């Protein structure tokens, strides 16, 4: 069936950005409402798409194929399956909240800011649904520039350094991946992902040596994006310097493109090398889990603390991918979404308090739960979701990952479980120092609590967290068939 829903979802934000370009820059409220509306339309389209998604179907759905640059063998090929659908929905869901949160926080160059965010959204959505490997690469690179501008223009004091670091780190990885893509094209004669997989399995298998190098190039690129220990050093800088909206998008969605890339490209294209690299990558993600948690434990800047917690949480996802167990990978995909929700919300909350007090140092707070009880409630819910408390979304993903990991190797499971305990430790420490205890600073006695706009963009996060936490069945059902199909690759 010829359906254009995916193209529509991907291109709506870009078209919106184009329209916004013609609005007078002084007309700030029109720009803000326009951007919000565009992202809401995208969300509506996303929900519509999810409604017609058939969880039991294997393979890609809502596929679109057109020729694009036939002279170079590049096609326009989109499709969605259980692995990508949740990430598309997560992106569609996060963006309206982000736009709403910037209404007060971003006062300079509002027009450019909204255009950048919309272009980001197109880049991220495109990367999740592209099935032509060059098309994926285009989107993958294209979202780099708006993010670079968001950090560099609207960021903090060391924004230029952070923006450059972010850009160069990512470019190093992606250009090596580009070379690997060219090699693959030469080997298989196509850029089309399903066709390439087919040919690699049947007519033109790669020898282990080539797989080793190509997997290395792909994985390096995605590991930088995730970021996997020890390639994570750009992340704390980028997070601390980025404006709130930038952090939310970065942690909420952008990092998942790394883990998604591992599942979608690196592992299926080079299964032998993936098995060979398995111990290394598992240990790196375990080190990342522990290291991220320990680093988070000693941070004084709240944003940096959350940034390191991301390193730890995404370590779980990478671990899940490389233990090659159905429930672990299902948990990994869910964990991507859960991390997007909980960390996205935490960054939004930090933005809320930063707007009022203009500091992110933990030592400048303490005891504010009494002053802003509603805020504190939201913060604690987000924290508990991040820790993985049963009944909230974080638990489902983490449990599936740990269960799967223990099945494969108890040692991995033990180390990972230690990471969960450390996670509870640093998050609860954050809550204690930030919200409870005596009020040391008098400025903190007069902080206003959440207003209606802030309620509007925080409440959906909480509702989703509870929904996934109490009734994850529809989500798991969307993911699981695709995962089992995916694991047949390794029927060795």
């Amino acid at each position, binding site marked *: 069936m010829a359906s254009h829903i995916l193209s529509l979802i991907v291109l709506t934000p870009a078209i919106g950005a184009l329209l916004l370009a013609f609005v007078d820059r002084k007309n700030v409220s029109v720009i803000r409402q326009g951007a919000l509306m565009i992202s809401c339309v995208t969300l509506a389209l996303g929900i519509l798409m999810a409604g017609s998604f058939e969880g039991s179907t294997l393979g890609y759905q809502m596929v679109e194929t057109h020729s*694009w*640059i*036939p*002279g*170079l063998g590049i096609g326009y090929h989109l499709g969605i399956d259980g692995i990508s659908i949740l990430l598309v929905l997560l992106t569609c869901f996060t963006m309206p909240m982000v736009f709403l949160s910037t209404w007060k926080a971003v006062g300079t*160059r509002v027009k*450019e800011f909204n255009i950048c965010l919309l272009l980001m959204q197109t880049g991220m959505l495109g990367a999740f649904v592209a099935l032509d490997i*060059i098309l994926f*690469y*285009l989107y993958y*690179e*294209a979202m*780099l*520039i708006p993010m*670079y*501008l968001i950090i*560099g*223009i609207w960021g903090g004091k060391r*924004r*230029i350094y952070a*923006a*450059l670091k972010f*850009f*160069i780190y990512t*470019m*190093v990885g992606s*250009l*090596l991946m*580009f*070379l690997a893509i*060219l*090699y693959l*094209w*030469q080997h298989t004669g196509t850029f089309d992902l399903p066709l390439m997989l087919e040919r690699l399995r049947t007519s033109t298998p790669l020898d282990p040596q080539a797989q080793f190098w190509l997997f290395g190039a792909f994985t390096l690129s995605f590991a930088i994006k995730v970021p996997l220990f020890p390639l994570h050093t750009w992340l704390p800088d980028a997070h601390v310097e980025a404006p709130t909206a930038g952090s939310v998008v970065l942690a909420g969605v952008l990092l998942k493109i790394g883990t998604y890339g591992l599942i979608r490209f690196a592992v299926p294209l080079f299964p032998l090398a993936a098995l060979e690299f398995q111990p290394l990558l598992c240990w790196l993600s375990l080190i990342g889990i522990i290291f991220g948690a320990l680093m988070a434990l000693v941070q004084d800047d709240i944003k940096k603390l959350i940034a390191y917690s991301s390193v730890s949480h995404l370590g779980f996802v990478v671990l899940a991918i490389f233990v090659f167990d159905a429930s672990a990978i299902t948990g990994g995909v869910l964990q991507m979404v859960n991390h997007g929700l909980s960390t996205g919300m935490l960054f939004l909350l930090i933005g809320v308090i930063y707007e009022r007090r203009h500091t992110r140092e933990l030592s400048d707070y303490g005891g504010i739960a009494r002053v802003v009880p509603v805020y504190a409630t939201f913060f604690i819910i987000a924290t508990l979701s991040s820790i993985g408390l049963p009944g909230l979304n974080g638990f489902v993903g983490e449990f599936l990952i740990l269960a799967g990991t223990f099945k494969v190797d108890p040692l991995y499971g033990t180390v990972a479980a230690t990471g969960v305990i450390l996670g509870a430790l640093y998050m609860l420490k954050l809550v204690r120092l930030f919200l409870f205890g005596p009020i040391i600073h008098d400025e903190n006695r007069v902080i206003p609590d959440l207003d209606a706009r802030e309620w509007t963009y925080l409440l959906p996060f909480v509702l989703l967290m509870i929904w996934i936490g109490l009734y994850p069945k529809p989500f798991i059902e969307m993911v699981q068939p695709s995962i089992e199909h995916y694991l047949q690759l390794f029927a060795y």
Partner: protein
Amino acid sequence: MELLISPTEIEAILPAGILFLTGLVLLLVDLGGKERADSGMNPKNHLVFIGCAGSVLALMALVTGGGSVVTSLYAGAMSDDAFGRFAGALVTLALLLTTLGAGGYLSSIGQNRGEFYSLLFFGAGAMVLLCQATNLVSIFVAIETLSLSVFVLAGYTTDRRPSSEGAFKYFVLGAFSSGFLLLGMAFLYGVSGGSLALSDIAANGPQVADDILFAVGVLLMVIGFAFKVGAVPFHSWIPDVYQGAPVIAVGWMAVAVKVASFAALLRLLVAAGGGETLSRLIAAIAVVTMLLGNLAALNQTNIKRMLAYSGIAHTGYLLIPLVLGLTGTGFESGSSMLFYLAAYSVTTFAAFAVIATLSRGQDRESIDDLNGLASKHPMIAVVMTLAMLSLAGIPLTAGFVGKLMIFRDAVEGGYIYLALIGIISSVISVYYYLRPVVAMYFREATGDQHEVEHPWGLHLALALAGGAILLLGIDPQALVEFSVESMRSLLGG
């Protein structure tokens, strides 16, 4: 030999003829001496209009004429094929853009004289001829004519010392490289049985391929061209000349000289071959050129110098198709060179034209002069950003498709190490290509440097170049096909 000129010969030489004639007309139109005193500050729109009309006519003659491959015109001095017309059209397009931008820019530095335009057009005519030349003498004459025009353009602002210094350096080194070229030609002439035509050299090539004189002859000619395109170690003139010359002329030189020289070099190597040894040598030059160009650009604070080194680096990328062609897999990879030249042309022109918009009295060429440009002139900043991203090879720009084609050919031809080094040097280049972007978007303007009334011509040229960068990045299919066909016409004919 009959001294009759056939219609096909007229058709072949028509574009170059139009350009030379326009050059003459421009010179004559500006002869009226009564406004000499203030003529420098006058935008002289009539010269720009005449120039644009001339280049559009020449472009039409290039695009509409030809069709079939006709060799041995003018007793073998030139041929008429899609390849020559493609490269010639690139030169003429660059000429059109340069002419558009020149009026406003030259009046802003107070040096708006008719000579500038006629020099541009004489040089362009010679370049178009060079793209079509198929015999050693016509190649040499075309190169000398274009070099003379470019030497003078480099030293056009006579009251500035760096400009004269650059022009002098360029002249001396250029004369030196002509010596190499001529000596190489002499060797080839001797070895290939006393013929100047490339077709005879191609025919005799296989028999004399082992002759050391033949190899040395080809090598010397390659060296001569290496000077013109700025390949390491024959690149040392480029940064000084680029820094000294008026920026709009730099844009012209950087684009057109490179296009015409690469076209002639490709034609020469297709005919002469050169085998494994030459291919290895060019591969080494390409590697060093890519790395050195990009590394040297890292620390430049003068944007013209930075772009000069970046131009050297791009010469390195452009040499890769030659390496592939010489190894015996055939010169099909030349099509990626043609595409890359097109992408490089619009991109480089756009970057230099942006610098031209900043000039007031003299070139503002420090990267700091771009500070805060984005808030004063967002559209100019967008074009500059596009140009930088395209030079760095970021997707959705022309430069990405060009790099994709060249590296793809390299991987396909088994030269993974060339592609790898190309990619590593692209990573390096990202760092310095971002610096203007940082300056424009992330820093605040420090003075009044952007309070400039921009001339319409420059704006139009910028819009065209920026549009072309995007168009070639998003929908390159037509040009890809066209460059493949052009290359086929050269190989088949």
